[in-house]
């Protein structure tokens, strides 16, 4: 059954269900995750399967519910918080950053916070600036948090199960546009290790490092680039913190050209860190051309479809970037 195909949402839901079946300490809390089934339908029927206690609908109180998750985790529960849109982590930053991330270190190792915070991230649904951000940079910058961005159904399940097992707070940013996409996902519970990048495909001419929905866009771009004779390696870091640079470094050593693709605004975004690691060496020595970043524009996400599309990298932008990179220097 390794080739069973399900959607990304179903994969997330299956991971939660399997974790809840295996461990009575695992439970979910969030807004409208109960009978409504979640704003993006992710919790779906879990409420009917596990009941209102463990699939716990909350009032609109993001700071309170993340804090409650922190408290429950401190005494041994394994809460999974769903924040309805990742933009609303803004309401809960104190509990995420000043509490969850720091408690283990700050208390000298005395307690820990095995909490998972899941949130739909990114643009593409016409929901405008307050419902479309890609905020992974914030979390990746905070020591004590782990940050994962599953880019396909298999990883959505495997990384989430690993996150639930993890004794640390893990932020899982799921891309809204991926929820309805499908792919093969093993039925049994399995873990995709946190902190290990994924070699999506190999190609000798350039390396594309991409996260979230940009991974599938990069795959689509690579398919078209192949027809033009350009063969791309694609690497999905999957975990932004801790970051695994080994695959990226090796791939750059092989091709000498690298393009970094993210949806978030470019300025001081996650891909800046990847570029910095390259600039610090050893990959620097193999560069045949400058590092290229293809990122979201440095603007809030607009509402109109044509504006929203223009604000973040599309397949064509990735292709154009790769073609330009091949022409350099």
């Amino acid at each position, binding site marked *: 059954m390794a080739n069973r195909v399900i959607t990304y949402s179903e994969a997330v839901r299956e991971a939660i269900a399997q974790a809840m079946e295996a461990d009575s300490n695992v439970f979910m809390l969030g807004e409208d995750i109960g009978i409504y089934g979640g704003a993006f339908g992710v919790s779906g029927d879990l409420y009917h399967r596990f009941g209102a206690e463990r699939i716990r609908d909350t*009032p609109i109180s993001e700071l309170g519910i993340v804090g409650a998750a922190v408290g429950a985790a401190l005494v041994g529960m394994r809460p999974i918080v769903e924040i309805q849109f990742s933009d609303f982590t803004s309401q809960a930053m104190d509990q995420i950053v000043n509490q969850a991330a720091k408690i283990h270190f700050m208390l000298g190792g005395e307690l820990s916070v095995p909490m998972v915070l899941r949130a739909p991230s990114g643009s593409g649904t016409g929901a405008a600036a307050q419902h479309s951000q890609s905020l992974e940079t914030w979390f990746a910058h905070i020591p004590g948090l782990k940050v994962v961005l599953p880019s396909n159904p298999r990883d959505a399940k495997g990384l989430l199960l690993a996150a639930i097992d993890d004794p640390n707070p893990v932020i899982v940013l799921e891309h809204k546009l991926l929820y309805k996409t499908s792919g093969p996902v093993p039925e049994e519970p399995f873990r995709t290790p946190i902190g290990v990048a994924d070699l999506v495909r190999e190609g000798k001419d350039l390396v594309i490092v991409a996260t979230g929905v940009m991974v599938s866009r990069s795959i689509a771009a690579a398919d078209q680039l192949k027809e033009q004779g350009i063969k791309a390696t694609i690497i999905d870091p999957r975990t932004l913190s801790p970051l695994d640079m080994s695959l990226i470094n090796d791939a750059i050593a092989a091709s000498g050209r690298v393009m970094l693709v993210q949806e978030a605004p470019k300025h001081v975004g996650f891909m800046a860190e990847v570029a910095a690691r390259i600039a610090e060496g050893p990959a620097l020595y193999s560069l045949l051309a400058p590092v290229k970043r293809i990122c979201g524009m440095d603007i809030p996400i607009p509402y109109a479809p044509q504006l929203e599309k223009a604000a973040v990298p599309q397949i064509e932008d990735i292709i154009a970037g790769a073609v330009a990179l091949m022409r350099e220097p």
Partner: protein
Amino acid sequence: MVSITPLISPESGSLELDRSAALSALESMLTIRSFEEAVDGLFARGLMHGTMHLSIGQEASATGICVALKTTDYITSTHRGHGHCIAKGADLTRMMAELLAKQTGYCRGRGGSMHIADTKTRNLGANGIVAGGIPIAVGAALAQKMRNENNVVVSFFGDGATNEGAFHEALNLGAIWDLPVIFVCENNKYGMSNSTELSMRVDKVSDRASAYGIAGVTVDGNDVNEVYQAAVAAVQRARSGKGPTLIECETYRWKGHSKSDKNLYRTKEEIDQWKAKDPIIRFQEIILQNQLVTQTDVDALANQVRETIREAIKDASAAPDSDPAELLSSVYREVYNG
């Protein structure tokens, strides 16, 4: 460019005893209803994008509050903000253009339904963040007080918003500084799928006023005149320096929370019960009964409103789509080195 007739406060003190006030209130409610039904239709036909939160069934609260305001008074609004925007006098063509993602829309197509603001009518904006507008209203009210302006600021929000920390902090600030701000909770019984029974342990949202030492009142939010009366009292309190009021308008949204709502959390009976309390029909019946208007007046008004909305759609549709080429403009306001 079309908008409703500016709302007229009745001399009599009651919307049910003054013909021109009654007609303007009715026009406001009918316009909100018509606008949103049109939007619903455009959405269903795939002509509108994103998501949409309709206030059909809640027209009396937006209208009843705004009748009590001066044109220089401010409001802050919510994700469910078309009604507030219209009642405050916004241009319907620019609103429609915004929803249709046009360059001529209030936000040049950048904001959509959740972010319409209007400087002219002093609407400081809808807000995609639940409770996000409440502290903003407090700040605008603080500015009025510091400048000795005689304006009040109304902040609209839902029942669900009162569970947010922002509500708490904002009400407290408004209270301690005696600000000319009026907190209007449109309690439609649900924050998305979460009922007030599940989300709070108080009988009435207005019970929360006592935590801030301010006045709290609950009114039938489907009775535009009752809302109006409460607003008048609150406005007077605010303008005379006596500080904020929390007005709870009990009402109901007929439609789902947003476009993705399957309505699993409430019953058809409940919805029907509330439809029977339609604020527009109720008000029409009263003013007909009070012989302020005739059925002919009402029908004419309804026709005129439908015509206005059709015109707004037509004009908005003809406008150019919003332009990706200028996306980098207005990220920052330009600095004047003058």
